[in-house]
């Protein structure tokens, strides 16, 4: 067992009136609770505008009770220490009366703008304990969301934008700019639709102009005019992507065009002319390439955010949603929902940078199945029904995921 210092503190159950009555108080639950409690005794949870937010907490589910409110930071911290929730969420919305119900009685004032990205664990070779593929693919999309869309196109300031790891596989991007906090749900939907690039009629960026009486040509010629270097927004994105494809090495170039639906012969012909094609496209003359719609469709299928991961539209548009409180623990992992500085995002590894529990202490657990995963730079292999001595952080992960039991 863990240190005696934490063992003597019993974890108070949640409000008898609100917590689920049939909650299973197992040895594992007590262990998790004691460690979570110790974490909250030593880590301040800081919530800006705490008294204007609605809070929700979960023990079995992510949110078992909501409509909670706190007058102060201190009151919130005391709640964490005494009730020890496994999941803690708050509203991106600010209310006059955050505890009031129904929702309309809260008197909505404004809301942070939130983007929620999560892994799609349905890929081949997904690791159910800790999947680096999931972690990497979500992180890559978060970076794209920030750099290509929020900072470049939307012009959001870095000072008003924060990135928060969820503590499991996802990320939340919070934008707390006063000018955006009043956006309606429909307006927020437009922003998320823009980033996703879904349901976009890309043909609208192109015009076909019919030219007669061109020198040396006695028939009518159709010229396709599209995005040029003068374009902005999605039009510019289409051109930039096309130009990036045109400078690929030959093998990748041909493969990309083949994937878009061109024949090998067509792809090779474009490759032979690629510099000319690039200069024509840059000035908006898309007739320089055969079947430009194929290339555009290929670009469209990859240029938005949330193609291989999920960009949850409802979190952005539904302002009554509750989302994970930054720097609290995630009950599925025992990992901190950490706020990540932009400079650390590209190299962020939650099993290094968002650990709540010790790697030097160990704990004996019995795995419920065979598991093989990487955590904090080390490989961990556990056999089914065998006792294994693992670092405390790994034990917490397995216990939280209900993939191991204590002795």
């Amino acid at each position, binding site marked *: 067992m863990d240190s005696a210092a934490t063992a003597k503190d019993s974890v108070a159950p949640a409000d008898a009136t609100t917590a689920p009555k049939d909650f299973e108080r197992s040895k594992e639950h007590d262990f998790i609770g004691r460690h979570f409690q110790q974490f909250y005794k030593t880590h301040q949870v800081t919530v800006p505008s705490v008294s204007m937010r609605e809070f929700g907490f979960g023990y079995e589910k992510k949110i078992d009770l909501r409509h909670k409110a706190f007058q102060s930071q201190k009151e919130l911290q005391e709640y964490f220490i005494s009730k020890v929730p496994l999941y803690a969420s708050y509203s991106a919305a600010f209310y006059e009366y955050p505890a009031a119900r129904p929702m309309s009685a809260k008197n909505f004032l404004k809301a942070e703008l939130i983007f929620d990205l999560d892994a799609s664990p349905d890929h081949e070779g997904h690791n159910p304990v800790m999947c680096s593929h999931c972690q990497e693919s979500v992180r890559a999309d978060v970076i794209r969301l920030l750099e290509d869309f929020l900072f470049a196109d939307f012009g959001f300031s870095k000072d008003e934008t924060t990135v928060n790891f969820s503590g499991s596989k996802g990320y939340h991007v919070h934008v707390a700019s006063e*000018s955006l906090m009043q956006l309606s749900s429909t307006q927020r939907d437009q*922003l998320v639709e823009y980033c996703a690039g879904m349901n976009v009629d890309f043909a609208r960026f192109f015009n076909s102009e019919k030219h007669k009486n061109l020198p040396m040509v006695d028939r009518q010629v159709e010229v396709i005019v599209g995005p040029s270097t003068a374009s902005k*927004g999605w039009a510019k994105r289409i051109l930039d992507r096309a130009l990036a494809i045109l400078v690929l090495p030959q093998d990748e170039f041909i493969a990309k065009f083949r994937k878009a639906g061109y024949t090998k012969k067509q792809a090779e012909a474009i490759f032979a002319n690629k510099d000319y094609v690039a200069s024509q496209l840059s000035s908006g003359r898309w007739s320089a390439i055969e079947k430009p719609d194929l290339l555009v469709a290929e670009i469209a299928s990859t240029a938005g955010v949330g193609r291989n991961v999920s960009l949850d539209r409802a979190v952005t548009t539904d302002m009554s949603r509750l989302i994970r409180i930054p720097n609290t623990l995630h009950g599925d992992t025992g990992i901190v929902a950490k706020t990540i500085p932009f400079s650390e995002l590209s190299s962020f590894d939650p099993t290094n940078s968002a650990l709540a529990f010790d790697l030097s202490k160990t704990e004996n657990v019995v795995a419920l199945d065979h598991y093989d995963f990487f955590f904090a730079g080390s490989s961990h292999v556990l056999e089914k029904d065998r006792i294994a001595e693992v670092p405390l952080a790994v034990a917490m992960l397995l216990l939280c995921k209900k993939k191991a039991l204590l002795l």
Partner: protein
Amino acid sequence: MDLQQRIAYNYFFSRQARQHLSAQGLGQIANSDLEAAQDFCLRLIRNAQAKVPFQPWVAQDGDELKWIALSRMLLSQSGNPFAARLFGEGLAKLCAYRLSLEDLQVFTAVLSQLYPTLKADGDKYCLGIADYTSGQNELVYAPLDGGKISIDRESLVEMASRLAASRASDLSGIDKAALPPLITEFAADFAAALPSSPALMARQFEGKFLNQGCMKKILAGVSEGKRFYGSMAIAIACQKDGLSKEEASALMRQYVANCQRSSHEFRESEALASLDWVYKHPGINLSCRKLLQQGLIDRYCDGCPQTKRKTE
């Protein structure tokens, strides 16, 4: 007439107009005021419907502001969202005409009240995201860069007149119970003088669903909070009646136009998304009970084949 007055008299949505109205008040309302308001309202409605360019005018005094306020009260009593929409469109056309006459200074002074982020940018203008998305613009097609969207004067006027139209026809802020009795009395005759949606009323549908009273009622437009369910109901009826997706889309657009404008905009794309969904799930049935629960209808239609089946 000084500049502030000119803005007040000609742009009902301006700060100057609000100040003028709150300073002057509506005064003692006489029947003659209501008659003048009705004439004004019907003139705008005719102008909105006119295919040829209408004869616009520039306001020389504050009477028009009073007529607008009274028209809106009367329209709120009439329960005719179609007419309210035309009134808004007529007024918006008028504002657009007046804006086209203004010099840069007045133009910017008026439009920056609708769009606080508006900035002149050479011979164009630029708008921030919050302002651009407040209209029915689709952000994905916008030339967006660094949070700014470049827009020419003509498109800006078009956008502003759409916003003006939706503000004028949004009657949700009017407390009907608090209206003076004189207005309530006058409203009955006023309502009779208003046009009803000709495109819908004249149309005979082949199928049995769209011809039901419930669907006609929904098609004529519903209020905020019911618009989405209304679009689902129409989509199902269209699908059951065997309308092509194109025919159904046209009808859906008409429905969106007929719906009440309010602070929470109901976009054509939202209604068309309902249609898309229903056409992809052809097994969905129309539930009269849901229509009733959602307040889209207040009773079951006589002779409805659906309810007969239900009660058996």
